[in-house]
């Protein structure tokens, strides 16, 4: 056309076009195109404890990892199964109390209590959530939000499991390196594991449930069965983080059912970019330290925090990771139409 109209077009980078799915890489450049972003994340996370050795930052790093695990489990359920689960606190509390009981009553060491609490807690959460699985959308969200409140009040009212005082005298991890590297290792393994999982046949079915559960039923599969598998995976991740948390604080109390554990992972998912699995982890890597840095402002902390969130949702609602992936895989140029 002679009007000289232009539009911006997005072109896949050459390497991306050739490497998508087919890994016949011929040069170092192509190898690094695929592996550098992953290596940056892995090495970056592994180096964190060495770069920031102070006791204060050590704690921030571990808490960040715990939130990142919760955000991972939220993103998995929300964007790959279609269950918006506000039960992060439910998983943390269940895992935490189980680890606490296993440690104080049965005297098991942390390296046994954490996996045990993860698996037993995961099964327990799945069984408790089973009646709610036919629910969708906001109904499931509300019900899953009720569970942590319910359990916290039960413990408080019946004065069991230490009541409002909680369970004290829990063993800590062997040393601070074990603590940090256990969490970072778990985070990396689970993150890449879940990413692998959503591309297997099972993941395909789960994504199908999110898109159209009637079609899945019509294909002869039990939606509830697959949903319960997904909830089990997510709650194992959540309970693992809860169990680690009690060993870090050496205390387990009803504050583990606090809403923070449900809400912050969602905020991190929004910022990081939902449906990418890495995005929520990055979101936590940003949000948790920011919220720590803002502590100097006292009560105003929440104000700044809220402003950052709102700005993000308005100006970058796609999320950091979605934006970043696009910039990495594609370049833009103006073309004449």
């Amino acid at each position, binding site marked *: *056309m002679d*009007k000289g*109209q232009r*539009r*911006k*077009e*997005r*072109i896949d980078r050459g390497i991306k076009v050739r490497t998508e799915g087919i890994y016949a890489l011929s040069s170092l450049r192509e190898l690094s195109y695929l592996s550098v972003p992953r290596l940056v994340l892995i090495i970056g996370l592994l180096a964190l404890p060495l770069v920031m050795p102070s006791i204060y930052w050590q704690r921030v790093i571990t808490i960040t990892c715990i939130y990142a695990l919760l955000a991972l489990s939220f993103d998995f359920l929300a964007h790959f199964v279609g269950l918006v689960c506000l039960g992060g606190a439910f998983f943390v509390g269940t895992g935490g109390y189980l680890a606490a009981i296993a440690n104080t009553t049965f005297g098991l060491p942390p390296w046994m209590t954490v996996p045990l609490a993860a698996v037993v807690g995961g099964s327990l959460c799945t069984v408790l959530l089973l009646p709610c699985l036919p629910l969708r959308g906001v109904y499931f969200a509300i019900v899953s939000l009720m569970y942590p409140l319910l359990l916290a009040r039960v413990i408080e009212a019946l004065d069991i499991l230490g009541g409002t005082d909680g369970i004290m005298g829990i063993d800590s991890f062997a040393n601070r390196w074990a603590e940090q590297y256990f969490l970072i290792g778990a985070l990396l393994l689970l993150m890449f594991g879940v990413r692998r999982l959503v591309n297997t046949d099972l993941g395909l079915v789960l994504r199908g449930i999110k898109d159209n559960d009637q079609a899945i039923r019509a294909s002869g599969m039990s939606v509830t069965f697959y949903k319960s598998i997904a909830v089990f995976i997510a709650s194992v991740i959540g309970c693992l983080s809860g169990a680690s948390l009690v060993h870090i604080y050496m205390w387990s109390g009803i504050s583990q059912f606090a809403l923070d554990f449900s809400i912050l992972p969602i905020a991190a998912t929004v910022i990081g*970019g939902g449906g990418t699995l890495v995005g929520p982890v990055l979101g936590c890597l940003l949000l948790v330290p920011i919220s720590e840095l803002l502590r100097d402002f006292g009560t105003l902390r929440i104000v700044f925090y809220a402003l950052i969130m709102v700005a993000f949702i308005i100006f970058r*609602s*796609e*999320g950091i990771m*979605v*934006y970043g992936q*696009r910039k990495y895989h594609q370049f833009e140029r103006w073309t004449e*139409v």
Partner: protein
Amino acid sequence: MLEATDLMVFYENMLALNNINIKCAEGQIVGVFGANSAGKSTLMYTLSGIMQDIQKKEEMAGGERITILGDVTYRGEDISRLKPSQRAKKGIVLCPERRRIFSESSVLENLKIGGYLASSAEARKTIRYVFEIFPALEKLKNRVGGFLSGGEQQMLAIGRALMAQPNLLLLDEPLLGLSPLMQAMLMRATREIRNEMKISIIVTEQYARPVIPIVDYAFILENGAAVMEGTREELMDNPDVRSAYFGVEESHA
């Protein structure tokens, strides 16, 4: 009345509409025919402005970048940059593909929502008119939209669009999934609406046969480009068009 010049729409790098020029004169029924993915719905979305909405949503979600180029003039005024709601106020009303009725509201409520732009006297008059051309709807007026049959839903969708007091009605695949009997009824009703309400109508469809009797002028889209246009008679006389869009076998004796 409505004229679109050099309309181009890109979904990312895919060209959905390629240099389309179409126009619709006052009081005409214009048909737009084409197979799946020919660009019919894209054209309707672009004319009604919904495309801008889709464009914005995609941008927010980090999805595809949609580029819209070209001009749409309506009664001598450039409306290419107007939002869908502003276009509706000017009388360009879309009756979307797959009906999109409010499935949890009753028939009467659906019509009332459609009549948001009309004065209450106009709305009352139009509801009476809708029940007159679609008597089936009156019997169902308290039924919830989601429980209507496909044909009833389509009648309701057209009725709802009429409630907005259109000057130009855009019907996107109104015959989708309907029985031949229902198709013929709807097309008769469409012609009647044009005659009664003195409006212009653009109607898209894949299979031209039920629609062709009522159109004055028609365009044929293929892969986003308008490959042919003409009056009803001109298109009917063209053997290629006859076999491709009317299902009439030519005997090459």
